């Protein structure tokens, strides 16, 4: 394993390590405006699918492109790169009638977290 040295810190800090996988081409399952539902997944291990959106209905707002899938990569089970979408949920869909009618939530979700509504 390479050692982080004092000299290499500035380069490491300003370069970073994107998990975007721009060079690969994978056809997206969803397009802007598609109605989707966040799947009700409850894995034992790492996930970036917050509980409060599971089972909720939203709309695809933007396609960020391909990113490494944390649910597999965190466990050493491969990058499984897939599209990450900005999905818009109405506050009332998430929190019920008491929620603000003029507020909404935008969250970036990997394709495996979503299915067509």
């Amino acid at each position, binding site marked *: 394993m390479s*050692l982080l040295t004092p000299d290499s810190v500035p380069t490491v800090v300003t370069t*970073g390590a994107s998990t975007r996988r721009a060079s690969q081409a994978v056809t997206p399952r969803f397009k802007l405006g598609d109605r989707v539902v966040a799947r009700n997944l409850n894995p034992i291990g790492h996930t970036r699918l917050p509980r409060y959106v599971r089972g909720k209905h939203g709309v695809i707002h933007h396609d960020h492109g391909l990113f490494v899938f944390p649910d597999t990569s965190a466990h050493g089970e491969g990058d499984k790169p897939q599209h990450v979408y900005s999905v818009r949920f109405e*506050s009332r869909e998430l929190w019920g009638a008491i929620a603000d009618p003029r*507020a909404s939530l*935008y969250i970036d979700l990997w394709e495996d977290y979503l299915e067509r509504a």
Partner: protein
Amino acid sequence: MSAEHHTAPETGPALRVKALEAVLREKGLVDSRAIDVLVETYETKIGPKNGAKVVARAWVDPAYKARLLEDATAAIAELGFSGVQGEDMVALENTPDTHNMVVCTLCSCYPWPTLGLPPVWYKSAPYRARAVSDPRGVLREFGLDLPDQVEIRVWDTSAEVRYLVIPERPSGTEHMSEDELVALVTRDAMIGVAKVQPPARKTR
């Protein structure tokens, strides 16, 4: 011996960090001097002043603002800011009709190259829970009372993209230079929990 000759035991997290660093050092995986350089970098070199420069440039240069909204990562890199926790950036423009605010409900994801390390409240469970469920109430507690007709968009940055809010340019700043504008822009306004305040009127 009296008790004051003893050093108080360290708190849990501080002790854990020291133990982790000791183990990593013994295994030859980290160099303590590199950690010192890292800490110094985020204490003195990288902070919200960087983001303020991006915002001020967007306010004075419409072509730059267009590039920032189209490809924030590239536009921010034009000003020399890039890297860890800013690899994939999106800029969100606040307007009189639409207010954007940012939270990471899963942990504390935050755009380091432009804002530095996150403030303690940003990492707190109450902010993370209530920013998504009651954003207008949270903003009110920050002192920002938005009219009911203003639409609020909350961005949960818990995946890989990091967000920078471009606050509205306050009135009364039309004749200010870019450098003077930089000094007005606050960290909280770039997270979206505040507006940028007009400059204080000079009193005679």
